[in-house]
């Protein structure tokens, strides 16, 4: 079972907002040798539900297993693989960069171009907050790098489908399976 070697996938899982659920999800990845590149978890509008957004890599067969195994967890309500769909994805980074007299103007110019913000200023450092997709964050890191980055804190990706809603939570989770496999449901 071949094809699509190691494509990057952003997967979102709506889960019960309960202790232990994250551990079930991450345990599934470690126990089956799947890798998690980044992970974000927070409550949704419904306080009983959390959204886990994770980025992983794998060929079609591995991603299929990942989504199916996630679906199989009792605490998982719905799984969406955003890859090959219309979606917006953002991450955030806080970057502490050395700000010398000669480099300050340069840093502010970069901040301006990237439409990000200086959120903290100290005699020697600026702390910059940037949000965007992975490419944008990589680009600003490349530019700031030569000026002297002291520290970085990054979130994982969060994602959401464009325009069309993901559908209500009441839609059962085997919907996705039905499309791919004809796993019928009354």
């Amino acid at each position: 079972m071949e094809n699509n070697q190691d494509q990057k996938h952003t997967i979102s899982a709506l889960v019960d907002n309960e202790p232990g659920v994250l551990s079930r999800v991450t345990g599934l990845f470690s126990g089956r040798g799947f890798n998690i590149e980044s992970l974000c978890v927070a409550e949704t509008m419904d306080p009983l539900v959390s959204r886990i957004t994770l980025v992983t890599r794998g060929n079609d067969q591995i991603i299929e297993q990942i989504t199916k195994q996630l679906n199989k967890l009792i605490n998982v309500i719905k799984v969406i693989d955003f890859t090959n769909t219309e979606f917006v994805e953002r991450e955030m980074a806080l970057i502490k960069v050395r700000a010398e007299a000669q480099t300050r103007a340069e840093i502010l110019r970069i901040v301006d171009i990237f439409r990000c913000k200086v959120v903290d200023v100290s005699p020697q450092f600026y702390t910059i907050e940037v949000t965007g997709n992975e490419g944008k964050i990589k680009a600003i890191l490349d530019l700031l790098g030569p000026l002297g980055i002291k520290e970085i804190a990054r979130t994982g990706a969060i994602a959401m489908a464009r325009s069309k809603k993901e559908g209500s939570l009441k839609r059962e989770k085997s919907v996705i399976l039905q499309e791919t496999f004809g796993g019928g449901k009354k």
Partner: protein
Amino acid sequence: MRLSGAEIVIESLIQEGVTSIFGYPGAAITDIYDTLDKSPIRHYLVRHEQGAVHMADGYARTSGKVGVCLVTSGPGATNTVTGIASAYMDSIPIVVFTGQVPTPLIGNDAFQEVDIVGITRPCTKHNYLVKAVEDLAGIIKEAFYLARSGRPGPILIDLPKDILHNKTEFKYPKKIEMRNYRPTYSAHPKQIEKATAQILKAKRPVIYAGGGVITSHSSSELKTLAESLTIPVTTTLMGLGAFPGRHPLWLGMLGMHGTYWANMSVAHCDLLIAVGARFDDRVTGKVDLFAPEARIIHIDIDPTSIRKNVSVDIPIVGDCKDALTKLNQLVQKPGKQEWRKIRQPWLEQIKEWKETHPLNYEQGKDEIKPQYVVEKIYELTKGKAIIATEVGQNQMWAAQYYHFDQPNSFITSGGLGVMGYGFPAAIGAQVACPDRIVFDIAGDGSIQMNIQEMATVVANQLPVKIAILNNGYLGMVRQFQELFYEKRYAQTFLKGNPDFVKIAEAYGATGLRAKHPEEVGPVIEKALSIKGPVIIDFVVSPEECVSPMVPSGKAMTEMLLV
């Protein structure tokens, strides 16, 4: 009605129709025991918690009900892990209640505290730590539902001691709503249509059935499909009994120790119809060379089973019974065809494989061959016994030579392969089916892993028969060493084996022994005539091998005929 947590546990069990449970007490769950002893539920006191879980497992497999066990916190809980993992691999519905330290102490490394929910997360279908007595009844209801529905499996409920004390109004929920859990039972008609087209077209089809057929009670539907289109059938170890072991279309088991003709049939078929089986490595061998000429239809209730190990042409998610019933309707549509005639060349080919490489052994005059013991047990129980096995050669010989006729009669730890499983599982089966003959076919190594349960059978006068195929070795490993390690028998000779007859007697049971071939039949008859538990020590050829054998990682056609 205001009840304590302990009373709620017992009341809920009664509501679930539980009549027998297996367990072992300890401080953390004394409250439950205090209530249990006044209830109509019969408790079987085991001698090791691992035994309790395997008993619940054996009970579940033979009763069709959920097996239940009850243990204390800490070591009681950790002792259940092997049994839970085995039930998980084999999709057996059990509910395990563990004691836990009081909620305020959780996380403090309190005496006999262990995070059993964390430990068993990867080997349960689901598990719960009960945090409030108000949640208890709902959780128990959910647990039983989860255990037996969809792809069944073990559920663990961890019960902190204070929860068992606390009181609340008790009302057992009538139904449950789980928005996150709705197994797909109904097979998709489109997929069934596609499968039908392939089935009607195939020249050399084979049905490969697994434990799912037994779980979903669809062996009669399976038989209908096989017979109406004249399709030969092989099963996995877990599927034995799903198809009659003396049927003309029966190929025997496939896989590592499967029959030559079953493996050859799969290797040369043009259509493989997999029903409730999961293509595990003991069945497929080298995956790339598994059924290389075949299109594959795969029916399974668990979507994760599909395309996990092999790619599949027509996946069908659903209950085997539903899918088979629908298939049976559709394949009849085109009207009666001369399937026997159409299949003739294929069946001829299979017959030839079978005749050139049958399962065989030679029973000489001196040493007892283990296969002969199994065949004799088959003969003298008229194929009607429930057979549990340990793990190793004993398990494979039981699979090969006891021609299982009905489902739910072969009880073995298929997925995890737990030595020490068979005896307690046989006890569970005997509790579920008091009128049937129950045998544990054991190795001299495995039986020592849970031999303490002799006390349980004696105390409860359960007439389980243990047939030890005593070869003095950890036979299956020795066989590996013989074949692949130039007979270097490192640590597989069981020096220090006890006298099993005396062990039986020390427990107050009957011990018998056979050393010569002509004693085999009579000693089995004698055991069958005894009402209580019996150990029969069969002193068998020490270096007999299980044949055929596919070395791990090889193609299924590369069988060694040892």
